[in-house]
């Protein structure tokens, strides 16, 4: 699906890779470069960093479009990726868009995921993601959309009580999901791509992206007990 999602004329996404394992950084670069071979490049790597302080310096210097960010990082005040995001608050790219963060982690622990999302990441994927899916995710985040893995969608459904049947009366309610958002999250949890979600619900891909972004906003702003409790664990509130 990435072929339809990546219109050729756009400039490659400038990416900074932050992870404390050199092996992993090398691996991601090699894999993505290989996946882009032959086609117009989706992204180019402009920097790398192994810890919080280096990461902040590199991001401020390079102002990339997207930062691929590990959740657990040495340095800073001990909150890993969350520290990087807060340390780079307000940094903008040359085109005036904010620097966007995509969390990339081996950890499935809810508090890690929720913490980095609430700190401001635009999405969360696990490190086992395939190269093509990762490219799609980078592109999507660069465009200002949100990227949810099935697991993150599952967390969201749990955290907002949607799995237990709690549904917002009005869409603007921050502490619950709307019926439509719940449907979208359920399909993502089932492993559907955005395109498939759109087809299943007879809506456009753009509408799916809007719903996901709206869920992301609720995830970041809601004061629901479950979310604040998770974030409290990482001293984020």
């Amino acid at each position: 699906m990435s072929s339809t999602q990546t219109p050729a004329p756009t400039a490659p996404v400038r990416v900074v890779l932050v992870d404390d394992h050199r092996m992993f950084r090398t691996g991601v670069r090699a894999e993505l470069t290989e996946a882009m071979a032959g086609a117009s490049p989706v992204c180019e790597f402009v920097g790398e960093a192994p810890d919080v302080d280096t990461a902040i310096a590199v991001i401020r210097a390079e102002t990339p479009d997207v930062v691929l960010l590990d959740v657990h990082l040495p340095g800073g005040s001990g909150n890993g990726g969350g520290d990087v995001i807060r340390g780079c608050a307000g940094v903008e790219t040359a085109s005036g868009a904010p620097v966007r963060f995509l969390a990339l982690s081996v950890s499935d622990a809810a508090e890690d995921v929720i913490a980095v999302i609430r700190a401001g990441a635009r999405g969360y994927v696990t490190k086992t993601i395939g190269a093509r899916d990762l490219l799609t995710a980078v592109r999507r985040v660069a465009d200002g959309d949100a990227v949810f893995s099935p697991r993150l969608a599952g967390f969201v459904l749990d955290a907002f009580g949607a799995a237990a049947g709690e549904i917002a009366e009005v869409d603007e309610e921050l502490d619950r999901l709307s019926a439509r958002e719940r449907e979208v999250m359920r399909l993502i949890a089932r492993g559907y791509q955005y395109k498939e979600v759109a087809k299943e619900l007879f809506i456009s891909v753009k509408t799916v992206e809007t719903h996901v972004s709206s869920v992301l906003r609720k995830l970041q702003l809601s004061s629901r007990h479950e979310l604040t409790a998770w974030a409290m664990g990482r001293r984020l509130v």
Partner: protein
Amino acid sequence: MPTPYEPAATRVRTDAGPLPGAPPSRPPLVRDRSAGWTPGVCDAVARHLGVSRRLVRVAAVVLAFSGGAGVAAYLFLWALTPEADGPAGAGGPVQARVWSERRRWAVLLVAGVVLVVAGGALLVPGVGMTARGSVLLPLFVIGVGAVVAWSNLDAAQRSRWLTGGPDGMGWVRVLLGSGLALVGVLVLVTRGSSVSVLWDAVLAALAVLVGALILAAPWALRLWADFRREQDAAVRATERADIAAHLHDSVLQTLALIQRQSADPAAVTRLARAQERELRSWLYDGPQGSQASLAALVTEVAHEVEDLHGVPVDLVVTGDRPFEQHGVALSRAMREALLNAVRHGAPPVTAYVEIGPAGVEAFVRDRGAGFDLDAVPEDRLGVRRSVLERMERHGGSARVRRREDGTEVELRLPPIEGDDT
């Protein structure tokens, strides 16, 4: 199976003897209380110096008669020499040791009581006491009292303080010993005097005891420090041994298996995946609670399928409820669907289970060519019987959807009747 990862547990107890292969060294000066009545001082010295035990004993007795130097040295060593669990290799019958200790105490107690009676008798005029005897016997009583009290503290050096102070018997011994010593001191001081000086004598005796306590303070502190150090070391050793044992049983074994099967990529993937899952649950899930939930059951099913075929299954579960027969049926049907997906479909295989008040819904999806249920021969029982009919028997439903790129099996269970949650 000894490995470099489990040193703590095995090396702790070898301090009584040199390690095999290590250069021969002098055994440490530790007392062994597992045999005999004595505190084991002579034995310890003999083992430490590598000379005959009898030689040491004779030397001690000779020294004892030459101005009491032997006695002083003996007491000094007794107080300052740590106690070992046993000599090298002595796993010794614990029961026997306990009994011998009890017998020893019984004898000491009886002797103490006899001596008190004897000491008391000496006070009574007309029993024919000599000046010399009236000094020596009370001294002897004091000595025995001290032995009773101190020996108990000595024995308590290990486990008793650990388990929240000495037991009832231990306190009895301490009190008895102190009492004996007090009586001895009193007898010594008040011999031949009137009752009027008795109070002075009591005060004097108490002063002596307090003085003795002050003198003993460093020793008691050492005891306490010993105990704390041992406790800390034990906790750390246990923790390290736990982690080492876990890593050994899981990660190291898997790495060994991966090396042996490195020619088979499918096996390597399967092993790595299973190990990752296991380690992840160990790291992030914390102590395992009750496994009697539907979420735990379906997770287990997905892992089992993953292990059987080496195809990763991405499972997401939301909500939970205790499992009952319908839940079990759903998990079996889901297992069948997963097996079909990994056998006939193409990865990635994803599964989503939502457990809520409106019932349970499970979705199993693959990216294969898909299949037409009507085209499946009647005699192929897998999907029809294991999935569709099973779900219907339990009041639920199942649907197989053929999609552009793969198949999705949907399983539904109604809410449990009478369940409000």
